[in-house]
């Protein structure tokens, strides 16, 4: 089985990279962009039966810094 972990900055945390991307998009003439937030996508290839609790523990212990980041787990069922 696979899981995707999306790590994003919490609301209110300044995101200098998102800001820079926003400026670059403006510079390219894309005027309709209100805001940009940059995050991370981490793909995990996991042993079958890995529990939700285990994946969440991975996020809390390492994949996300919960002081500044949120995470969301998306399980991807693989077709044998």
């Amino acid at each position: 089985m696979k899981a995707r972990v999306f790590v994003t900055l919490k609301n209110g945390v300044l995101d200098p990279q998102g800001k820079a991307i926003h400026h670059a998009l403006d510079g390219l003439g894309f005027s309709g962009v209100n805001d940009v937030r940059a995050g991370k996508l981490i793909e995990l290839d996991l042993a079958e039966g890995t529990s939700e609790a285990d994946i969440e523990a991975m996020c809390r212990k390492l994949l996300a810094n919960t002081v500044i980041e949120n995470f969301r787990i998306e399980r991807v069922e693989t077709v044998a």
Partner: protein
Amino acid sequence: MRSAVIVFPGSNCDRDLAVALAAVTGAKPTMVWHRDSELPAGTEFIGIPGGFSYGDYLRSGAMAARSPIMAAVTVAAARGVPVIGICNGFQVLTEAGLLPGALMRNAGLNFVCRSVPLKVETSQSLFTAGYDQGEEIAFPVAHHDGNYQADEATLDRLEGEGRVALRYLDEVNGSARRIAGILNDAGNVLGLMPHPERAFEPAHGATDGRRLFEGLIEQVAA
């Protein structure tokens, strides 16, 4: 004084820190590899150096904070052993939960590498006893992720408890309240982005950092 310097893959200020510690303590520190799970018996001071541990993968300091030796550092810190984390070492200490908050990408996105003026906010600490309260000093900084952030309640608590050790006099990296260095609640752990070990001898162009180490040694010996 028996000191130890933790070395991660990608540390690059470990030897500078070792030279500074050897000069003030009169004994070479033990260089402790990140895969070790124990500190040398009788370690009285721990230095976590600057650099780019694990290539800054995932987040600066994130992987180093989970390395085997950090469990031993955490136990030693809880026993009151003084720990200093400089630059990447500060990032490691926040990631390890030994200090509150987080160090994010510099607000200006640039890597900042220059000497910066600092204000010593408290001289009532193990690490800043060699300075006068409110004294202005200068250390070099060299970092990409030095933008200290924490929630307002945490920042208020740090200020109220005299745990902001050093503050930038100018805007450097977007840090909340221009914080450059903070102490833990027990006062035996200091994390700071500027490099005192790079302002240690006249050949460095500045010697303000020397008093941090000298003051510390006196405090530990006292």
